[in-house]
């Protein structure tokens, strides 16, 4: 096993971590495991792809790559727009599906099932619109440059990791230092009591959806940039996301990121040692071990 395994794992783990933050936030504040979260990742990637290629066509087609990266100016612009649209999609799904179920006081498990149905509809909608053939943001080839310690990485991969770490730090500050963050933690703690204290729970819930889906979109675009864009990309990430959210401890943003990196590195080590065909089972093994040994995760609270 070479140090390169670690680099590959960190790149994959950064994307898993970003997705897991959304899972962990919806889980701690809305109190259900959202099986549709993976689809926000896919939708984010496809929306960015559609916007980027539309921008490219509108402005004459020839978009030059920025600096060492494989993509041109259209992708960052598309990313911002896609984050907004994906957040809108999540809010729309909530308004149509989860909101009414919540108001009716449905059992947690009904919400989980509804998210399962929504996931299927959303995923196949992508397949209907974009077909199932893989897409790419860019056809540029990139050379992996040495980054020290015997590891190599492409500029895109380094950018991905940097953006993920900056976002995690920002979200962590938002949760710990702002009034909105305090409200979110209060609602996670006890929605009724938070309501009595004058916190608008609906606003908090909207923020959670927008934040989670926005991060999912970023993760999807990153995954599309360094791997590829497929309708199943979100579904394939779902199990690693859940494993990371539970390993990190439900509700903990730094925990989700750290656990995402752990899951990513474990996956790439498995690929190197056992074989690529077993990659998808790694998350399940990690999940089983956490549930057996420490169900509340690394940074979760008991109960």
């Amino acid at each position, binding site marked *: 096993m070479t140090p390169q395994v670690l680099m590959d794992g960190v790149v994959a783990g950064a994307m898993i971590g970003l997705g897991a933050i959304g899972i962990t936030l919806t889980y701690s504040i809305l109190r259900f495991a959202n099986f549709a979260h993976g689809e926000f990742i896919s939708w984010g990637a496809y929306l960015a792809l559609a916007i980027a290629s539309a921008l490219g066509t509108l402005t004459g087609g020839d978009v030059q790559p920025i600096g060492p990266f494989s993509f041109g100016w259209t992708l960052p612009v598309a990313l911002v727009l896609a984050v907004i649209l994906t957040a809108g999609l999540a809010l729309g799904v909530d308004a149509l599906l989860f909101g009414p179920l919540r108001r009716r006081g449905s059992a947690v498990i009904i919400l989980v099932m509804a998210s399962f149905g929504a996931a*299927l509809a959303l995923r196949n909608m992508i397949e209907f619109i974009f077909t199932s053939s893989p897409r790419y943001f860019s056809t540029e080839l990139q050379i992996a440059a040495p980054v020290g310690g015997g590891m190599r990485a492409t500029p895109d991969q380094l950018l991905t990791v940097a953006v993920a770490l900056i976002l995690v730090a920002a979200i962590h500050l938002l949760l710990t230092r702002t009034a909105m963050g305090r409200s979110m933690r209060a609602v996670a703690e006890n929605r009724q009591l938070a309501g009595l204290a004058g916190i608008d729970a609906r606003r908090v819930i909207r923020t959670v959806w927008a934040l989670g889906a926005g991060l999912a979109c970023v993760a999807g675009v990153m995954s599309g940039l360094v791997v590829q864009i497929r309708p199943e990309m979100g579904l394939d990430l779902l199990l690693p996301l859940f494993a990371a959210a539970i390993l990190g401890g439900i509700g903990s943003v730094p925990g989700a990121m750290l656990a995402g990196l752990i899951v990513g590195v474990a996956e790439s080590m498995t690929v190197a040692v056992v074989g690529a065909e077993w990659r998808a*089972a790694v998350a399940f093994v990690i999940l089983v071990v956490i549930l057996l040994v420490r169900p509340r995760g690394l940074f979760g609270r008991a109960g």
Partner: protein
Amino acid sequence: MIDILSYGFFFLTMALTYGIVCLGLNVQWGQTGLFNVGIAGFVAVGAYVSSLLTTPESASHLGGFGLPIAVGWVGAALATALVTFLIGALTIRLRADYLAIATFGAAVSIQLCVLNFQPVTGGPFGVGFIPRPFAALAGRPFLFGAANLALIAAVVAVLYLALERLAQSPWGRALKAIREDETAAQALGKSAVAFRLQAFALGGAIMGLAGAAQAHFIGFIAPDNYQPTLTFQVWAMLIVGGSGNNRGAILGSVVVWGIWALSAALISAVVPADQQARAASLQIVTIGVALCAILLWRPRGLIGEARVGARHLLRPAAPRKAPTPSGEN
């Protein structure tokens, strides 16, 4: 005419194998409230175990052991019960949706194992030459179809009667009590964890049996048959039919399988060949939206759960007499 009837037999047999899966899911979800997102994996376990036990010896996979079909079915049920028991034991004490996540992971991993353990399962090539019940009649499609339908219908009927009886038994009532009010049931000395685990494994056994029945009916299995879409179809069947109700489970499987088969036939007839994959995904979108719509507007399904319990409790409360001073009541 015979053709149409033969197709009818085929359709109903297929629908009833799904009906068996639905009955298993109903034990887990309808009666116990355990959310299983790994149905496809558990059905696959049953299908593979029974296939390996009963196929003639082959170089492309483990075995086969050439055992009688009945042995294969029993083996399938037992093996799947064991797998579901283990998954359940891992998560049933924890939060309700951890079970959902764990079963989802189990299904992914089972599919992966089936695909990758090529010496055991035949890998992507699957298992063929699975012996079919009434193989002696294979030359006469009509009789063959009728006999197979009769067999599956008999299995469904036996399971239905057994499960109905079980639901009325002390075990079934304890299960329902735990689902409705865990604390109260525990105060009466019923161990929620043990009952849930038993129900989960029982449901798993039924799903394994269904997988076996399906495999022997079709005669060939491959990992691709056990995608998450299967899980989803079964859920749609139970929710449409009405969870908690065994008749609903069977009715739902026939209705949903009917809609599925009809729309698939419609797509292959109307949509041009290069667009069929697209149209098929729209088919799944429709079912996904329909499931959400039912959860929103008609959570009880076509036939809801029959209320069981002491009759006097179901009647509107009669005005109580004021207690007499002497205190007799």
